[in-house]
């Protein structure tokens, strides 16, 4: 066999690339089709949210959190207001807590649908699963519009509860959604989850071992797909999750397929939680009165929630003023990317997008 001279080529995937989920750049070195080196480059969407938060009052920051992971703004709201409540020692009326859990779970469904849809789009399905996912997500966003007048940047929660009682027509709409979504998800599963091409593309691809996942602080569905039964809704229940009856899907292989399937199964569990919220929704106020410009005592507080992408934490330091002294966002997408380079090396270019897509990161949250 003749030894032909060959050299590795470097390509820039992104910042403008059809499947980098935002503006993300990967400098990939290829040996033919095989990836030999990856350097992720972030920051194209950096808006300085943490710095902006230092200049805003505690209530105003709620609007900033919408824009972190714009596919799950409700959960971002929830994480932030939990941190403020912990800092200021505010209690939330039960109806407010239930409404938060209900909306957060609806948002989780929407976010997972989007994650799954784009993952399948990265696999090369020409838009069909994505379209089906968006069709369902759209109905959830309609509910959010009904609830708070906005579909994506909701700003629904406030320190001390949620901003307002939902309109009366919200309840039948939730009922209808909870009745019809399981069928739609089942249809999506029939379409894709046993498709031989999907299996061949994802089974065993991009394996993230349990030890590596824990060591790199990977969180959320990615951690659970690696076989770690760790869900903050169970491990450190906030709001009323302790009263909710739901199971946690846990994978065994830690490959792209498990990550995909964990998300799909979490959607079913989210519907289950939302169903319980709908059933047990208590009466009473939705918000405990808190002045707009309130001054928490000096100190710090860290609150974390199980966001759709993983553990979303807010670390707030107060100096007794009306704005936080420091507001740190522990963004799950950013920390999940720690493992990306190692997961990619040795795979093919085609697998790159599958693995990256299966991690389901959101650049708005990575770059903050």
């Amino acid at each position, binding site marked *: 066999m003749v030894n032909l001279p060959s050299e590795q080529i470097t390509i820039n995937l992104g910042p403008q690339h059809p499947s980098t989920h935002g503006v993300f750049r990967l400098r990939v070195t290829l040996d033919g089709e095989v990836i030999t080196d990856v350097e992720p480059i*972030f*920051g194209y969407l*950096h808006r*300085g949210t*943490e*710095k902006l938060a230092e200049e805003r009052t505690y209530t105003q920051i709620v609007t900033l959190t919408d824009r972190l992971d714009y596919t799950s703004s409700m959960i971002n709201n929830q994480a932030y207001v939990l941190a403020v409540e912990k800092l200021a020692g505010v209690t939330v009326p039960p109806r407010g807590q239930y409404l938060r859990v209900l909306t957060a779970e609806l948002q989780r469904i929407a976010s997972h649908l989007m994650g799954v849809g784009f993952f399948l789009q990265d696999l090369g399905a020409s838009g069909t699963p994505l379209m089906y996912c968006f069709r369902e997500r759209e109905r959830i966003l309609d509910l959010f519009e009904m609830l708070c007048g906005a579909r994506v940047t909701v700003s629904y929660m406030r320190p001390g509860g949620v901003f307002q009682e939902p309109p009366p027509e919200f309840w039948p709409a939730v009922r209808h959604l909870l009745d019809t979504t399981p069928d739609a998800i089942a249809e999506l599963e029939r379409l894709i989850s046993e498709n031989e091409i999907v299996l061949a593309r994802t089974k065993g691809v991009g394996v993230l071992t349990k030890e*590596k996942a*824990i*060591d*790199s*602080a990977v969180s959320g569905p990615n951690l659970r797909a690696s076989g*770690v039964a*760790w869900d903050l809704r169970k*491990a*450190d*229940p906030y709001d009323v999750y*302790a009263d909710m009856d739901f199971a946690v899907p846990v994978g065994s292989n830690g490959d792209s397929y498990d990550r995909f399937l964990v998300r799909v199964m979490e959607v079913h569990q989210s519907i289950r939680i939302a169903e319980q919220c709908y059933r047990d929704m208590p009466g009473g106020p939705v918000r405990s009165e808190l002045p707009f410009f309130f001054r928490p005592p000096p*100190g*710090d507080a*860290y609150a*974390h929630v199980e966001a759709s992408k993983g*553990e979303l*934490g807010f*670390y707030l*330091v107060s100096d007794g003023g009306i704005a936080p*002294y*420091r507001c*740190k966002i*522990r963004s799950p997408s*950013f*920390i999940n*990317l*720690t*493992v990306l380079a190692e997961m990619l090396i040795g795979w093919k270019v085609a697998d790159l997008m599958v693995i990256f897509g299966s991690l389901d990161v959101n650049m708005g949250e990575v*770059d*903050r």
Partner: protein
Amino acid sequence: MTRALQSAEVVERLQGVAAEAVSVAAEGEVRVAPESLVTVCRFLKEEPEFAMDYLSSITGVDYLDSFEVVYHLTSLTHNHSLVLKTTLHGRDDISAPSLTEVWEAADLQEREVWDLMGVRFTGHPNLKRVLTWEGFPGHPLRKDHLGG
């Protein structure tokens, strides 16, 4: 519920590792001197009683006369948590030891703290800017950035 460890008990257990360097900062928080940070963290990770296998987050806070780096540790095994705080005095060219050899999770987070807060982590294999670009003037999350 994730149980916050009693800081007094933790400090007592840490006496054998780094006696002088640790003190109680607040409830569930332990203050560690930067020199013995790696030793303490390695102990907390490897001691089965603590098994702090999960480094949740690293935060840098600018207190004008000093910087504080806050580590949120969690144990997935025991479901308990602990906050480590370390104070770095001075403003220019401050550094803390890197924890990348203890937890891989420290990699990107330390880069972020370096980028935005200007805390150098000695021993980090690839301490480059993350969110801003190389050559960005200053560290934007410092309180005195751009004179603000």
